[in-house]
């Protein structure tokens, strides 16, 4: 009699191991997409289908030449894609599938992106989660690692970061921590020095910026694997083991990213950010991970092969996002950058004002980094980085912020002329798709399901805030303003860090 529940439990466990919930969530999106197709007019359907065909062909070809026939690498790359897309635009107008108006194209672009996002990016992410995991499992032997902790005015945080590193599960004899005090004006140095030991080295220099603190720390690092941790982050107990694991498995891995989790989830702003991270990390980044072209190893926690860092002369001063810049440099050197299962906890900006300041730095830095590495856009020898990662990033940085505001303006106009009911329906509809995508991310991550109630804000509200900020940052960077770090107020410090003294040097 007792066997029944056991075997029932076994069946459940077996079902649980294939994670049918991920498949179910993914497949369920067929319903809204089918409904979307149903309400689209024929011209739009043909136009989206043709675009899908072009993109699938392009991606298939790109993967084929990069992986199997590198001698054809220069053939039909991004430039050809642009030409084909221009021809496509002319064709769909000539065939009267789409009206020749900017709005019609933004509308088509938005629909095409939704389809593409789901049926390519999310599909690869699901495949990655279910089958293609490259980073699962831990190595039998761990390499020596040097953990760099750059710190500027991190009193009240840096001790905790060091303690979390000391608490982390890693063979003690293969592990050193180098805390670099970048000329802090508060008690950071004293707090860090209280941890000084054989394992923890604390060095100090005059203030020069995060990149210079990291470069300085590198001088003292002894190991072949360099791990960097922000001085306000808390690494998970197995994070160090997880972040080095991929180096052992693949020779050409140059850098490994971690998963950033927000611990202060007590406000709308921070919970929205967590949902944003959950979708970005679990859907978008998994796709890039699959191809080894992850674009950002976050400063919170990342790991590099020392020779990969030295080959590219480590950190540069020109951008505000040294993590994005360095990752791109490592990728350009021909190495893979992938994701590990290492987890790091960080404190997110908890007010809109602080979020604004944080993102002002991030987005300005993104544009600066993109302009700095513009050769990626034109040079096909960069393989999938040029063919896949950069076009996505360009669309994200240069098309979406504009499109989002054009669409919002259009929505406002529709409401004004009396289409409130349809606009509401449209919002409900797209929210349901974003909701299912977010649910997929939450399920893959094992995150908090209640985050899903913020999904509507990712369609309207939170999204436009970021898009507007992106536009502002683009303008700032183009106008070459004096772009300094903009720091958020720290929850546990309570005061604003006024000036880190870091200014971006003139590249000329």
């Amino acid at each position, binding site marked *: 009699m007792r066997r029944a529940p056991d075997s029932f439990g076994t069946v459940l466990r077996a079902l649980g191991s294939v994670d049918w919930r991920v498949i179910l969530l993914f497949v369920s999106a067929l319903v809204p997409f089918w409904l979307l197709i149903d*309400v689209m007019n024929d011209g739009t359907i043909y136009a989206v289908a043709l675009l899908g065909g072009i993109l699938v062909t392009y991606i298939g070809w790109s993967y084929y030449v990069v992986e199997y026939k590198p001698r054809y690498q220069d053939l039909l790359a991004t430039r050809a894609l642009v030409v084909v897309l221009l021809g496509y635009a002319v064709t769909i107008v000539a065939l009267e599938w789409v009206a020749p108006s900017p709005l019609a194209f933004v509308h088509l672009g938005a629909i095409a992106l939704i389809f593409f996002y789901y049926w390519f990016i999310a599909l690869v992410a699901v495949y990655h989660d279910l089958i293609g995991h490259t980073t699962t499992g831990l190595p039998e032997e761990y390499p020596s690692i040097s953990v760099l902790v750059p710190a500027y005015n991190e009193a009240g945080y840096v001790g905790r970061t060091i303690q979390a590193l000391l608490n982390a599960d890693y063979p003690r004899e293969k592990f050193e921590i180098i805390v670099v005090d970048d000329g802090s004006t508060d008690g950071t140095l*004293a707090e860090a020095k209280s941890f000084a030991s054989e394992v923890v080295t604390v060095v100090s220099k005059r203030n*020069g910026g995060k990149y210079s603190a990291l470069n*300085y720390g590198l001088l003292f690092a002894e190991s072949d694997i360099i791990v960097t941790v922000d001085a306000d982050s*808390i690494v998970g107990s197995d994070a160090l083991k997880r972040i080095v694991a991929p180096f052992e498995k693949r020779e050409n891995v140059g850098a490994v990213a971690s998963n950033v989790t927000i611990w202060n989830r007590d406000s709308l702003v921070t919970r929205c950010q967590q949902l944003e991270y959950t979708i970005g990390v679990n859907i978008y980044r998994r796709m890039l991970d699959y191809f080894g072209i992850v674009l950002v190893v976050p400063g919170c926690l990342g790991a590099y092969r020392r020779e990969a860092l030295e080959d590219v002369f480590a950190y*540069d001063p020109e951008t505000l996002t040294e993590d994005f810049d360095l990752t791109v440099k490592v990728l350009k050197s021909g190495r893979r950058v992938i994701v590990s299962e290492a987890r790091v906890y960080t404190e997110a900006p908890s007010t809109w004002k602080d979020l604004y300041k944080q993102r002002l730095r991030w987005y300005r830095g993104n544009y600066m980094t993109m302009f700095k590495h513009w050769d990626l856009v034109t040079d096909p020898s960069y393989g999938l980085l040029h063919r896949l990662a950069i076009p996505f990033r360009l669309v994200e940085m240069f098309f979406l912020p504009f499109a989002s505001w054009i669409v919002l303006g259009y929505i406002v106009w529709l409401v004004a002329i009396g289409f409130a009911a349809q606009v509401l329906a449209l919002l409900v509809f797209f929210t349901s798709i974003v909701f299912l995508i977010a649910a997929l991310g939450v399920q893959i991550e094992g995150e908090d399901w209640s985050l899903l109630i913020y999904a509507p804000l990712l369609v309207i509200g939170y999204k436009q805030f970021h898009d507007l900020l992106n536009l502002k940052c683009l303008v700032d960077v183009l106008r070459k303003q004096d772009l300094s770090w903009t720091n958020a107020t720290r929850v546990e410090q309570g005061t604003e860090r006024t000036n880190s003294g870091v200014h971006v040097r003139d590249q000329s």
Partner: protein
Amino acid sequence: MNGVCSACSADSLAEEQVVEHGCGLMDARSAFAEGCPKCNGSTAEETFEAVETITRCRECGHWQAPPTNATGAISRPASVSFPELPELGQSLTWLPSRLVPKSERRQQLLSSAIVVMVLVSGITGALVASPLLEATPTDAAATDPTWEEYDSIAIFRNDDIQPWYETETMRSVNQVFIEEDVPVTLGVIPNAAGELPLTSDEATCEYLGSLQNDHPGQFEMALHGYTHQPETDFYDGSEFGGLSDAEQADRLAEGHRLLSQCVEPSNTFVPPMNTYDDGTVRAVAESDYTTISGGQWFTDEYYDRDGMGNGTTEFETDGVHHVPETQPFEDWDAYEGGEVPFHDTETLTDAFDESHAENGVYVQMIHYQYFTSEERLDQLREVIRHMKSTDDVGFMTVGQFSAGLENGTIERTEDGWRVLEPIEHTSTQKSASLGLEPTDAEREAEPENGR
């Protein structure tokens, strides 16, 4: 320099100046002796920024961490307090612990139930919203109201729609209008011969309903009498003309009741045999109908409008619009029994061209039941295509024309007509099929006397 290297134990430690070059490279000053290995740029003194002076082993290159000079007392924190970190990977940890079941099996079931709940709510959201999307804003925007100029108006009126009769032919004729994308007013008999209520033929009823749903605004459902039987000798036979006001009102009301059970009737009344009298107009005026579409041959005579020309066939009396047919497809004068003959195509196109030249309202009457062969359907197509190929012709139904005149969205101009497009569906058709409340814009454009 005293001491040995902590890495290689060699006795060759020396002080080295660490500098940062303008390109960001940081190293010992001596490393730049042969230029900057990173940027190959100038290595003039002013391109360097001194960072720190550090002890280094000349043997192995190891940098000795210098002692740091922290200000203030240095004491190990008794303990570091960590914030509560979110637990991941176990999908139920975010629930209050009292709600989490103890057994693993129940936890599995609960987390699966949550996934299903999320999935169902996502799909429900999409399902609920999608019917409203059918009137997509993009379509609406594409049809932003604009005034269009036309030389003339063209209307088709397909009479004698009735149950159980030549239904295949009925569909074939309507299909021509669908394929040519031309609107048409259907004159529907609600109780043919007083014996066949429209509702008795469910298939035809459903079919007519589907025309209204699938082609909004293209098929107008007009009331075509009540029994379609001549009741008086008025103008050689009339169902309405010559009857008492009360009887006419009864027939109109009863016909409307029957028609409403099957389709959404418009505001147009098409009297059988194209004849009616002042009593009919009074009955119509007192009902919710707004328009009578008889025959021009009749209105010319009864209302003494003969000789006023093709350009002025429509008129208004007692608040009722008269929009008579101006040209039948059938040539009854040549009828000698058997198949009802049609006018030749040239006669029909000439009649249209004449009306077009006079900026008139051309109302082409047809009776579906006579289009029994492909040749006859082809002739209809030919006439429609001739009209479509003529420049500046506004196609619409009787109801749309009359409603447009009423609410000012159609106006006569010196050299033709001015029409605010898109033309609204006639009042009773509106967006009911989409399950939508009419929007403010629709309400505004709606005639006041809508049903």
